[in-house]
């Protein structure tokens, strides 16, 4: 139980710091910490395969991509036309509205989630799955979705290469 609270606290604090930090590199690193905590929570939920996949895919690949882009763009922190030190709920205009909406969402979501009838008890004792059952289900019941995701990844790869290309093709001199 304490392990749950430790992981949950790390995840929440790291996520809060992600959106509060101004240096994007620190944001990316804090998000990696948050993913690590979530991975621990997945282990507590008897899902070791998802936990390891979270580290491999999210923390090990997607965040490396983010880190490379942040380093490539080299934008240390955002220039804004408002005072950064003021709390979001007191900033002018749409930002105050957005922050108020986020608070309202928290309240409403928590009220809705804690009200779900009947299934809020403790977890059943049976361990759910091994990698074998996940694999079997993935390749029989969800085989079509699996193949579609492979096409999706291919499309994303090609799209990313095309979108990030410099104008005029690879032989044009860099514009910066």
């Amino acid at each position: 139980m304490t392990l749950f609270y430790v992981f949950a606290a790390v995840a929440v604090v790291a996520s809060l710091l992600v959106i509060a930090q101004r240096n994007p590199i620190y944001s990316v690193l804090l998000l990696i910490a948050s993913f690590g905590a979530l991975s621990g929570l997945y282990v507590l939920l008897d899902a070791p395969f998802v936990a390891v996949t979270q580290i491999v895919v999210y923390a090990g690949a997607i965040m490396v991509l983010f880190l490379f882009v942040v380093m490539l763009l080299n934008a240390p922190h955002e220039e804004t036309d408002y005072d950064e030190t003021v709390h979001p709920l007191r900033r002018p205009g749409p930002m105050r509205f957005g922050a108020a909406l986020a608070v309202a969402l928290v309240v409403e979501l928590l009220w809705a989630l804690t009200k779900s009838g009947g299934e809020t008890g403790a977890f059943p004792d049976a361990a759910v799955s091994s990698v074998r059952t996940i694999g079997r289900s993935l390749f029989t019941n969800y085989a079509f979705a699996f193949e579609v995701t492979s096409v999706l990844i291919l499309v994303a790869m090609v799209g990313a290469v095309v979108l990030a290309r410099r104008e005029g093709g690879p032989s044009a001199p860099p514009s910066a």
Partner: protein
Amino acid sequence: MPTLTHYLVLSGVLFCIGTAGVFVRRNLITILLSIEIMLNAVNLTFVAFGRSMGSADGQIIVFFVMTVAAAEAAVGLAIVIGLFRHRESLNPDTFTSLKW
């Protein structure tokens, strides 16, 4: 012992943190990071419900969500790079006019 409610509350809080990040931050990369936080909160919900119902379907859906998140992060970052090359800024407020 943590019950399902604990996990749901945690994922609700994480989802709202992500949403607040999308609303409040003025940096394209941080907005994308907040979207990743939201997707992770949803993953946690799926795995928690899958565990409480005793089926492996929760974990399988998480697998697909991770794949889609990876694809979306790649394409989103490529778009951010393209935008940055044009305006030299990561602030979404500089991209308010339809003229390129």
